[in-house]
C-alpha cells in the first residue's frame, strides 16, 4: 500500500502552493510537515534530504524530490495532466511557466518593504491584465473548448485558475474584460476535487501575512 506523499515547507503558500493544488486536483491525499523554526530547518538540511539545502521538498514514491518545477512536472506526468503527446506537453509547459512567473512575483512581493511591495503588486495586476490574461482569453476564444490544451483538463488549466484567484485577491475586478476567463474560472472551480480544495478546512494556505514573512526571514536569514 503506497504511503501518502509528504510535503515539507513553511506554513504558507510560497513555492509549495502550486504543488498542493496539483495533488489536491488529482485527488491525492497528502501529509505536511510545517517548518516553523530554524532548528527544524537545520535538522532537515543535516539529514541530507534537501538536495541543495532548500525547500520545497516532497517525499513521494520512494523519492525525495526538491526543486519546485521538478516536483510539478513529475506530478503532472504521473496524474496524466501533461497532455497526450510532446506538442501538447510543450504548450502546457509554456502556459504553466507563464503563470508560474506571475505567481512567483506575488510570492516574492510579500518580502519587500511596504512601498516597494505596493508598487510590485500594482505591476503584477497590470501584467496580468496586459500580458498574461489576454493570451489565455485568446486561446480559449480561438478553439472554443473548455480547457486550454487538447480539450482535456491539464496542469495548465489548474495553474491558470490558481493565478486568477491569486490576482483577484489583489484586485477583485481583474477579470472584468475577460468573459471567457470568467466562465473558465467557474468551470474549473467546479471540478469536484478542486471545489473541495476551495472549501474552508482544506490544505490550501492563505495569502502571506506579516507573521509568515517573519518566520521565513528568521529561518532563511534574510
Amino acid at each position, binding site marked *: 500500500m503506497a504511503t501518502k506523499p509528504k510535503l515539507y515547507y513553511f506554513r504558507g503558500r510560497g513555492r509549495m502552493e502550486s504543488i498542493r493544488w496539483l495533488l489536491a486536483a488529482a485527488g491525492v491525499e497528502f501529509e505536511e510537515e510545517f517548518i516553523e523554526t530554524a532548528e527544524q530547518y537545520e535538522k532537515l538540511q543535516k539529514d541530507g534530504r534537501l*538536495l*541543495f*539545502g532548500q525547500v520545497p521538498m516532497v517525499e513521494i*514514491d520512494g*523519492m525525495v*524530490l*526538491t*526543486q*519546485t*518545477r*521538478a*516536483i510539478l*512536472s*513529475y506530478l503532472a*506526468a*504521473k496524474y496524466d495532466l501533461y497532455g497526450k503527446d*510532446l*506538442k501538447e*506537453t*510543450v504548450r502546457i*509547459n*509554456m502556459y504553466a*511557466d*507563464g503563470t508560474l*512567473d506571475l505567481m512567483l512575483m506575488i510570492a516574492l512581493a510579500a518580502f519587500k518593504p511596504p512601498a516597494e511591495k505596493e508598487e510590485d503588486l500594482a505591476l503584477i495586476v497590470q501584467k496580468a491584465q496586459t*500580458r*498574461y490574461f489576454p*493570451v489565455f482569453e485568446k486561446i480559449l476564444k480561438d478553439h472554443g473548448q473548455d480547457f486550454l490544451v487538447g480539450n482535456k483538463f491539464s496542469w495548465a488549466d489548474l495553474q491558470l485558475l490558481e493565478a486568477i484567484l491569486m490576482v483577484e485577491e489583489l484586485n477583485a475586478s481583474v477579470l472584468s474584460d475577460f468573459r471567457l476567463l470568467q466562465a473558465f474560472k467557474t468551470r474549473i472551480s467546479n471540478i469536484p476535487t478542486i471545489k473541495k480544495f476551495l472549501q474552508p478546512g482544506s490544505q490550501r494556505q492563505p495569502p502571506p501575512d506579516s507573521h509568515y514573512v517573519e518566520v521565513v526571514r528568521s529561518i532563511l536569514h534574510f
Partner: protein
Amino acid sequence: MAGKPKLHYFNGRGRMESIRWLLASAGVEFEEKFIGTPEDLDKLKNDGSLMFQQVPMVEIDGMKLVQTRAILNYIATKYNLYGKDIKERALIDMYTEGMADLNEMIMVLPLCPPDQKDAKITLIRERTTDRYLPVFEKVLKSHGQDYLVGNKLSRADIHLVELLYYVEELDSSLLANFPLLKVISLTAFRREGSHFPPEVLTVGLRSHHCADLLGPGTPSRVSF
C-alpha cells in the same frame, strides 16, 4: 522536410545559451536571428510571435515556442536526452533546476551594480563550492557511472558541462576539489559528441573564452 530551428534572441548568452548547447549536443543545426535594436524586438512583439512578449523564442516544428524551460523540455524529449521514465526525468529535472539556479546567478552578474559586485561574486563562489558542485560530485561518486542519470547521456550532463565552463571562466580554482566533475565533462562528449572533439575540450577546461573552447564558427557566445 522541416526547416532548421530558428532562434530569436540578443547576440549574447543570456537565457538562450543553454538552448544553443542542447541543440548543438543533439547534433541539430540551427539558425539565429539576433535582436539588435528596440525596433527588432518591437517587430517580434507586434507580429504576435512572442506569446508573453518575451524572448527566448524558438521556431521549431511549425511552432513558435517561448519560455526557456518549455523549449529545453521539448528539445530534450525530442532528442531522447530526458531519461527513460518519469522517475529518471524527475532526477534530471532536480539536478537541472539546481544548475539553472547557479547559472542564473552567474548570468545576471554583469547587470549587478558595481558596489554590490564583490559581494555577489563571493556568494556565487560559496554556492558553487558549498551547495551545487558537491551535489553533482557526490552523485557521480555514488554510482560510479559516467553520466549523472541512468548511465546514459542526458540533458543534465550537457547543462552541467555548460555550467562548469562558466565556473571555470569565473575562477578555475573553484573546480579544484571536484575531480569527478572534470572527468564527466570530458567523457560525456568524447563518447557522444562528434561536435566536441576531445582536444578542444581538454584545452577548453583551461581556457576562458567560450567561443575559443568550442572551435571557430560554433554558435556560442562570449559573456556580455
